């Protein structure tokens, strides 16, 4: 029955398991809040529908959309700087009547799509002119997002672009030059950072210097993770979240609740599940038959890794606190939709291969 649909069953099942886990943790982290869990499942059902819908679209069609989506996303980023809604001191949201969304979410998909589309039109591995154009395609939206300001997302989007370039066979020498110039740019970037951003970087290394502010997140997150031990305290038994010691326990810091309740073995299982999804994504990329599909599938897969890795590392105190949700586990609206759209495209690439291959 399912064969008639364009679909990837192992990937689908893995995503379902992940989402159900997510709902369970959101329920626990929100203080056994059923309403929140229901809202989250609505987001997830919407996300799955988007995924299945997109999987039916041919990759060639998706490729055709890519530049348009990118331009629309870019225009929205301009609009958000002009007319966006300010929330928590940053201008990230665009409102259409009762709806609000972050154009940077669109860019998370549009950028790898655009790069894959652009690079697939020329010969690979890429040469200097392509590299320069790609650089502009990456930097323009990234700079606009920095302006919002949302340094974390800007960095992730730039990294997404870099990953696609890497997959497209960017020369090692170029990579070294880019790494070196990034390192050189750090002092400049530091000088242009907002005070709260610097604070976050500083506090990463000295959480105890700021026990009331961001350090508080880090410290309480680490207490939650560490007190989970090998087996965890059990579902609904996260004291850190239930006693309100842990801020953002159902969004960006949900991994702390997970670790507290399910321990190191739970974390091991979760990471294994994520790695399985990555493996499926990589397999789809390997088997893809044209350059666009390969680059897009590979890029999206690696971006997925980037998101869960950055989120977990931030909770574990390895990276500064940036506003990145844990894919499919954190409570969240738009981010679920974009994520599932990405998997929809992966499935489309997987299931539209010609039989001859």
């Amino acid at each position, binding site marked *: 029955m399912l064969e008639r649909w364009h679909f990837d069953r192992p990937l689908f099942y893995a995503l379902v398991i992940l989402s159900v886990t997510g709902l369970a943790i959101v329920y626990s982290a929100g203080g056994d809040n059923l309403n929140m869990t229901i809202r989250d499942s609505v987001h997830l059902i919407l996300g799955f529908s988007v995924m299945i819908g997109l999987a039916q679209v041919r990759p060639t069609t998706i490729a055709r959309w890519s530049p348009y989506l990118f331009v629309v996303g870019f225009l929205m980023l301009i609009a958000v700087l002009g007319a966006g809604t*300010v*929330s*928590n*001191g940053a201008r990230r949201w665009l409102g259409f009547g009762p709806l609000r969304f972050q154009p940077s979410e669109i860019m998370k998909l549009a950028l790898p799509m655009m790069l894959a589309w652009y690079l697939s039109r020329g010969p*690979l*591995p890429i040469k200097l002119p392509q590299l320069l154009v790609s650089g502009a395609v990456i930097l323009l939206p990234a700079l606009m997002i920095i302006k919002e300001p949302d340094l974390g997302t800007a960095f992730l989007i730039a990294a997404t672009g870099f*990953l696609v370039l*890497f*997959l*497209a*066979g960017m020369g090692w020498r170029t990579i070294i030059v880019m790494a070196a110039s990034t390192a050189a740019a750090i002092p400049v970037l530091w000088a242009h950072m907002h*005070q*709260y951003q610097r*604070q976050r970087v500083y506090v990463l290394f000295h959480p105890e210097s*700021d*026990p*009331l*502010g*961001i350090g*508080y997140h880090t410290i309480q997150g*680490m*207490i*939650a*993770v*560490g*007190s*989970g*031990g*090998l087996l965890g305290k059990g579902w609904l038994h996260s*004291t*850190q979240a239930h*006693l*309100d*010691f842990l801020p953002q326990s159902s969004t960006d810091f949900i991994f702390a609740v997970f*670790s*507290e309740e399910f*321990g*190191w073995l739970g*974390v*091991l299982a979760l*990471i294994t599940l994520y*790695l399985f999804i*990555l493996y499926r994504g*990589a397999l789809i*990329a*390997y088997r893809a038959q044209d*350059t666009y599909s*390969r*680059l897009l599938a*590979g890029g999206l897969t*690696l971006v997925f*890794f980037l998101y869960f*890795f950055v989120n*977990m*590392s931030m909770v*574990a*105190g*390895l990276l500064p606190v940036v506003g990145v949700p844990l894919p499919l586990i954190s409570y969240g609206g738009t981010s679920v939709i974009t994520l599932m759209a990405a998997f929809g495209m992966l499935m489309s690439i997987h299931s539209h291969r010609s039989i001859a291959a």
Partner: protein
Amino acid sequence: MFGSRLSIAMGLVLVLCVILLVRLFDLQIMHYSYYSMLSRQNSINPMPIQPVRGLILDRNGIVLADNFPVFSLDVIPSHVKNLHALIVKLGHLISLNSQDLRDFKRRMGQLHPYDRVVLRSHLTTEEAARVAVNLIHLDGVQLHARLERYYPLGGLAVAAVGYVSRINSWDEAHINRIKYAGVQHIGRLGIEARYQNVLLGRVGFKQVEINAHGRAVRVLSRTPPVAGKNIYLNIDAKMQALAEQALGTFAGGVVAMDPQTGAVLTFVSMPTYDPNEFVDGISERNYKALRDNPLHPLVNRALAGEYDPGSTIKPYYAIAGLASGKISAKHRAWCPGWFRLPGSRHVFHCWKRGGMGLVDMHDAIEQSCDVYFYKLAVKLGINTMTRYLGYFGFGHKTGIGISGELPGLVPNEAWRRAHHLHWYPGETVVAGIGQGPLLITPVQLADAVSAISMYGKRFVPNLVYAIENPVTKTMHYVHATLDPPVPVPKRDFKTVIKGMEAVVYNPQGTAFGMGAKAPYKIAGKTGTAQVMRQNTLQRAERERDLPLQDRDDAVFEAFAPVGDPTIAVAVVEEHGGHGGEIGAAIARKLMDYYLLKDGRPRVPLPPPKTAGGHPPPPERG
């Protein structure tokens, strides 16, 4: 190529995941007992310690914004099982009226469930004691003694001082939460807002061990807070009170400045209101009363009251005429009591029905001859007129530094074009006597007349005298910033100032009598700003019989002593009638206070540079 790149990337992914797992292993297995202990007791809680907010004082050390110890009863909603039962229980210990409960619910809606919410502040000592004894049975209730803002002189100088009020959810999104941890108030207006960061100080914190009921048992470590700095204003509170009383029940603005330093000596907006009401959140009823008051006490008239300048603008046009070479001081114009533009039938009247005859610039300023200035306006043209007004700062914010300042309006052809309209020649004519769309604020007028008195030297009005470190008692003196000087030769200023002296001392002068028996020399100019648009002649006749709200605004500007000015005053009195009467009287009172003591010349106050002349700040416990 692609395949190998993907393989490299996946390899890297594996390595990073292993690193992450190792890190988590380290936290969860190797350090399990440590974190488990922290979590099980969840015993260590950082608590912020609020710094003492800096004081605001007048130039002589009179306290305008003080801190006062109050007991307040706070509730942490997330720690309360049954809020209703708790409130009933508390009702037996302290008095709680329906207003308290409404305010509590409102505040609770603005904050997070784990934030402290004030249920009642300003507990009496008995109430505080009763609560303290029963605290053990009151989960989620905290009794706090803290210092709270108190304005001992009420509404005095509130236009400059401003007030603090509770931090709301909008503020929370815009402040650095670390800097404001445990701080409940933030400067909302005036100096309180402008110098918020200076007054705030730095939050300290203590690590507190907490037992299972959430109560502090032991302080483990303590980083003391740093008190905020004290701010001495240039304002003289006694002079301020004098000006506020002099305006009486009239609405209006008075600004007095020291032209030689730019120091703002009085900064009045009447009517005032009591800033103490805002500190803990003004009740809706009281706020409504303030908002609906027909005199609009919440409008800061000193810097946001935009008024017709009336004839007080004439000296600036006289200067424009001299400096641009369009007219000489000796030039005489015939005033028949009216003026008509060539080719037009519209008649512009002089305020003096029969006309003044032949007048030169001196007479024209002294008697405020309208026809002379109609003619001068036609000679200058609106663009030259407005350019010179711009030199004096009209049409721009003075940059006094506290929020809400309005720029007034200097209209000319370009301004009209921006509104897709034409500028008519007749508008230039009435602009010559300060009517039409031209608007000024009291602080602009004070700054501009200071510039006349100083032959063109201009300052940004400066409210702050010094900032004091409360621990070391060292003073950091604040100097006014210079504005670009008015590009006009000194002799032209002197000509116009002579005319302004005649306003005060010549029997024909419009403010004659103001300078009687003053041992210093005053120069001034009166003005009457139209409120109702009507014929000048009719108005002059009917003025005394008009109901108050239809009477014209009185405007007055003056400075003294001529030649070595130390005080310049601008007065706007809404519906005060003619500027020469009440405005001049107010200005004279302020000058006498500032320049004389017991009728004799007063030792001038030390300029801000010399620390020695400053009185020691009052001792504070």
